[in-house]
């Protein structure tokens, strides 16, 4: 076998693995990872168990792959947040809208199950969340420095306020109970945060 074809095989192998991973992630989003059984998942997804075992050696590996895949998708927000061709506020709006839509699929329930049963995978999630906070913090710091944002604001508080909002999305129930779509919630968060709640025509009564 020539070197070239081995490369191609490996590539194909990776491709199949990735294709499965995407489906697994969707499956976990809907079913959680608690009481997760390989045979049941294989049956539900119409894949043979042998096929799964050809690519993954354990449950943990599957979950790890699915979460890693999801995180890599979410991480795309970074390119937008750092895209210097966009206006400064637009960078946030576009990047975080994408981020919010992505994380909305991942419920608190799923996260909690991972935290309890798969600490190794959970660690990845925590590191990821920390990095998001650092990115946002430096976004605000720079914004204050270049005068787009008001001086005197605390960048840590500003990023924490975002984190609280993300938690609210992952909680899902609050939005569902109030029949609010992710897009509406994000637009709300963005417009209040950046432009304030007061109507521009608000007149100060002194």
């Amino acid at each position, binding site marked *: 076998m020539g070197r070239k074809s081995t490369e191609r095989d490996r590539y194909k192998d990776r491709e199949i693995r990735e294709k499965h991973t995407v489906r697994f992630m969707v499956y976990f989003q809907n079913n959680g990872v608690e009481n997760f059984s390989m045979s049941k998942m294989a049956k539900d997804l119409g894949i043979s168990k042998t096929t799964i075992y050809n690519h993954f050696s354990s449950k943990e590996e599957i979950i790890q792959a699915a979460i890693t895949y999801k995180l890599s998708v979410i991480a795309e927000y970074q390119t937008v947040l750092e895209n210097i061709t966009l206006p400064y*506020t637009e960078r946030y709006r576009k990047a975080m809208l994408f981020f919010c839509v992505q994380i909305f699929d991942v419920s608190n329930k799923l996260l909690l199950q991972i935290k309890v049963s798969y600490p190794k995978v959970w660690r990845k999630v925590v590191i990821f969340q920390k990095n998001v906070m650092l990115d946002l913090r430096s976004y605000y710091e720079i*914004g204050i420095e270049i*005068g*787009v*944002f*008001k*001086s005197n*604001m*605390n960048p*840590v*508080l*500003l990023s*924490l*306020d975002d984190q*609280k*909002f993300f*938690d*609210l999305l992952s909680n899902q129930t*609050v939005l569902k109970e*109030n029949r*609010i779509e992710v897009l*509406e*919630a994000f637009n*709300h*968060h963005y*417009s*209040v*945060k*950046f*432009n*304030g*709640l*007061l*109507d*521009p*025509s*608000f007149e*100060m*009564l002194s």
Partner: protein
Amino acid sequence: MGRRSLNKIRSSDLEKRKKWINNAMPYFQEYGIREINMEKMAEYLGISKGTIYNHFSSKDEIVEFAVRLKIDSIKDFHKILFNYQLGFVERYYKSIQYYTQQLYDISLLIIDDLKELYPEVWALVNNFQDAAMKGLIRYYEEGMASGNFIKVNPKLLAREDRLFFELLFNQSFLIKNNLTLRKAFNDHFKVKFNGLIESKIPFELE
């Protein structure tokens, strides 16, 4: 657990209890509820254990009393929020400032212990928070109806306030970031009402 409401207790007795609980708050704040015992509490207050037992039959009663006392004092924020003698923005500013100031002696440790060990008492806190949110929702709706606020979702606005209050329980976070309650509240207020973007003319309270 004695389900006596505050106003059914003899007034001289009530004053004494209030004084002790207020004095013991720093102790609760530091050690949480799990670690409280009558002996240590008496020692901290400089009174005898017997004296405490004359007024409280058990630790459970102390915990419930302390929580009711705190809720009663925070509740007054509502009067300020709907004090129509004040300016519209001033109502929010003053009442939520009052609310946040009242949280100064509550720690995450207290909150976590309450949730875990006293779910019934925690339910009182939860109900209070729900009621507080209803008040805030009414305020926001009023502001939108009168055209002072842009039209966004009042429920989300109230939820954001609640998340902000919860953030303030985390005192180690505030200390680590060199934040006082006042600074945290002022930032929250400024961003919420005038937005983060620099160019707008800010609403200033004298």
